[in-house]
């Protein structure tokens, strides 16, 4: 890459790194509203569920909300010895890893494609958002129907395209890797717009001069992508990755309706298991303990991603 372009790049990032403002109370007031909302809405539930996770609380037995120090860690030890818990944890990690990474690559490609489109970009951006406009529960119901082995669209389409025989009926929601694949497909379909829009907005806001300088140097499209776009997009990448990884709520509805963690726990995720334990089985203490374990894991994960994010802001 030419010196002109890379100097430009370095100049921007250096000026960012050396910035310091000493004011104390201005940022404080900027942060205040956010903290107020979040502390009220998540602070109490977090503390409450932490407390409950140390008790054998069951929803329809109000007398079970008793705290006894020797038994405080019972729920946690039970979970750590529960093979279903570990299976669901493994499934969740697998599910998240595959979904987020696959989404990232698809979103990256799609965002670059859309950034290059010359006409009708506005309409395309709106069309891109379409999968996000459906409630996750509807997406769950609909995709469960699509993947129905006997009457569903997918099998029927495959048969009419001649890809499978008339008699073959693939059990998308039952067979071992297919169940996971099906929920991943549904989740990615619904959430692809999120990452794509973030990366697209990031791409569209990249400084033009750097590209122009690179053009002057005769850089190819691939080189421009690899050495300018990708590094500059890194902060957006980590933002998008973190958001999606923590975005537990959206996947829960889809999975609960499509497979409800089954069959035989094949697609059991932490959230379906915890939700069932806490409400349907009324074992709220146990469910809370499980939620806290996921919180701790998410914390670790977020800190890791955050470090990556900070690193990406400093250029080597």
């Amino acid at each position, binding site marked *: 890459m030419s010196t002109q372009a890379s100097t430009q790049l370095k100049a921007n990032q250096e000026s960012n790194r050396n910035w310091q403002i000493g004011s104390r109370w201005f940022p404080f007031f900027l942060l205040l509203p956010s903290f107020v909302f979040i502390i009220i809405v998540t602070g109490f*539930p977090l503390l409450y569920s932490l407390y409950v996770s140390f008790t054998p609380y069951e929803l329809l037995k109000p007398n079970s909300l008793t705290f006894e120090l020797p038994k405080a860690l019972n729920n946690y030890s039970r979970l750590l010895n529960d093979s279903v818990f570990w299976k669901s944890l493994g499934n969740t990690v697998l599910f998240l890893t595959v979904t987020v990474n696959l989404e990232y690559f698809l979103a990256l490609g799609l965002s670059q494609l*859309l950034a290059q489109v*010359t006409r009708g970009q506005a309409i395309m951006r*709106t069309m891109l958002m379409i999968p996000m406009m459906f409630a996750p529960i509807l997406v769950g119901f609909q995709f469960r129907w699509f993947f129905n082995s006997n009457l569903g669209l997918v099998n029927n389409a495959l048969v009419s395209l001649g890809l499978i025989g008339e008699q073959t009926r693939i059990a998308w929601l039952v067979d071992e890797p297919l169940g996971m694949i099906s929920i991943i497909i549904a989740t990615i379909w619904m959430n692809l717009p999120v990452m794509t829009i973030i990366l697209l907005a990031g791409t569209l806001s990249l400084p033009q001069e750097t590209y122009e300088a690179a053009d002057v140097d005769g850089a190819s499209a691939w080189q421009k992508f690899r050495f300018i776009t990708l590094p500059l997009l890194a*902060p957006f990448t980590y933002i998008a990755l973190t958001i999606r990884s923590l975005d537990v709520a959206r996947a829960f509805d889809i999975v609960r309706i499509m497979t409800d963690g089954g069959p035989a726990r094949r697609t059991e995720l932490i*959230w379906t298991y915890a939700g069932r334990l806490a409400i349907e089985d009324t074992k709220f203490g146990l469910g809370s303990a499980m939620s806290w374990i996921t919180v701790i894991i998410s914390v670790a994960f977020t800190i890791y991603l*955050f470090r990556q994010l900070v690193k990406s802001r400093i250029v080597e």
Partner: protein
Amino acid sequence: MIASRVSPHRRRNAIIINGFAWLVLIALALPAVWIILTAFRSNAEINASPPVWIPREITLEAFGNMFGLNPNLQQRVAVEAYMFNSLFVALTSTVISVAAGTLAGYAFSRFHFRFHTAAFLALMLSRTVPGVALSLPLFLLFTRLGLTNNLFGLSFVYIAVNIPFAIWLMDGFFRQIPRDLTEAAYIDGCGYWSAFRRVDLPLALPGLATAAIFAFLASWNEFQIVSVLARNNASKTFPPGLFTFTEQFTIDWRGMCAMSVLMMIPAIIFVILTQRNLVRGLTFGAIKG
């Protein structure tokens, strides 16, 4: 956008790129098309096997049923209530969460202060709480406060839910804006607030638009929390409304899809209006020279 001098070579490339983009987007929209078509189908075609793509007859029955226009049907769906409640809650929570998130994102991106990292992480971690751990204690708290079945209570929760995302985004977008611009504003005599308002905020419009779209859609489609906090039609939004189409054994596909089509309309309008801002050009030429 990448500058393109219009030459035949470029034009051919443009056609290929545009065409390919359309192809991909249409493929992506196929399941959505199915959902929309289902809302207009006759009953006989809904469960037809093999499935029928192009409806042989278009009917507005499902919509009529939903609006109570069918005298034979006993059930009446409170569509107006859902529409009003959803709009109220989504718009309120979007405006306030994006505002709060923008302020906080600005603080993180531009200022160094003690516990900078800790505060950032704390706000992010609020998003790690799974819905199931959140909904019941929240229900407890809000019942004591009398905020259940209350649009303000629901909006309050959604604001808190959407803020971390807004902060993440706006922080990222603000960092893309070179500090020199803000510094130039300070030199010109602007205070912190007016520098923010006059320089940084307008340049971060794409970020605002993005955050607004996501916040709106997240609130619009949210189910877990509202199903716990809103029990009567006066405060229910659309997603729990979708469940009225599931009876004990059957699912009224047509009804559900019809309601989803209805749900899409305000969402599309909002997105169209907002996403124009996704491409406001950043005038980097402002400080050159």
